[in-house]
């Protein structure tokens, strides 16, 4: 299964970035192999508005079945839910540890957005 993770850099050893739409790196990881198979520096981070919805659409297009991040705003959450992507939130620590916790089923699934719109700005 492919999952998307918001990270502070393009590495499994980087920390999970608490922001989704405006995270530094948006990584696609194959949970079978534990390897990064796509993504990189988050080009949507500098959008004037709509970074969350654009990042969410990109995640859906990559075929990711889940998002691992810290917080999600209402606009990104709406798009991810429409794309039937599972939203796992309050994730922290390294990307590697987050993937392990996801494998053990320890991550919390969001039932709504966790922060107001535009929280990742500035």
């Amino acid at each position, binding site marked *: 299964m492919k999952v998307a993770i918001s990270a502070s850099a393009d590495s499994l050893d980087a920390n999970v970035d608490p922001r989704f739409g405006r995270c530094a790196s948006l990584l696609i990881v194959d949970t079978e192999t534990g390897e990064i198979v796509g993504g990189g520096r988050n080009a949507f981070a500098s*959008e*004037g*508005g*709509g*970074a969350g*919805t*654009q990042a*969410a*659409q990109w995640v*859906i297009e990559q075929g990711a079945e889940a998002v691992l991040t810290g917080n999600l705003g209402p*606009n990104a959450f*709406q*798009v991810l839910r*429409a*794309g039937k992507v599972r939203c796992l939130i309050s994730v922290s620590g390294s990307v590697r540890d987050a993937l392990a916790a996801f494998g053990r089923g320890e991550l919390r699934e969001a039932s709504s957005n966790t922060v*107001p*719109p*535009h929280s990742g700005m500035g």
Partner: protein
Amino acid sequence: MRVAVASGKGGTGKTTVAVNLALARGHLQLLDCDVEDPDAALFLHPEIQSVVPVTVTVPRHLPDRCTFCGRCAQLCAYNAIVVLPGQWLLTAELCKDCGGCYLVCPEQALVPSSREIGTLIRGLADHDVEVVTGDLRPGEAMATPMIRRVKKMASDESPVVVDCPPGTACAMVHAVDGADLCLLVTEPTPFGCHDLEQALDVVGAMDVPCAVVINRSDLGDAGVRTLCERRGVPVLLEIPFDRDLAEAYARGQAAVDADGRWLSVFRELWDRLEELAVQRSRDAATR
């Protein structure tokens, strides 16, 4: 004459000056363009005459026509539209009504529709002050459509005082635009000085002449006065810190109603603004 009362820094006393200026002159219109936090009516206590909804135009999706080709989403520079297989999603607050999505859609699957962003409230206060308030709904991302709506109500016959939003961004520019004069309210602190300088630059670029009111003028430092002198901007009024004034404010009472001596102070301020406006139009004619 249309006077915009603005400031760079928030909380300097824009509304206090706008309200007292309006009451002292009387027989005019006050437009509350600080639509994210319109509070002039808290001090003017107008009798409400009308409340009408204010709407903006956003696209509505006709699913039967849509092929989910995604061209509208690709075009939208504001990322308001997301298209997924079989789904069309709009983040309405991001839409700036450019109209591009209607044009680019090959199936005519998008049509204009209305979305309410707040209300326009018109009332009448003492001294024949007509109060027009734009009240933007909490959470709305854009103040400018509401400000444009409030300014459409501007009277051609009577003078107009515009209570502007703080800062120097789009909302403030929209509110100040079209004014004969801009009265910038500041305080003598480093923050006040820094933001006043930005405001002078912005309003200067709009070719609207500025004058300054220094509020809480006996506190802080000399920075603001030095700046005004250097930029050749007249300081028309200094309001020292006054506990009675603060108490009246806390009660929702205008200074001119609380203490008669403020009536002559703000009348004089109005007269000086008129003089400046006359001088300005004379200068413009000889240029």
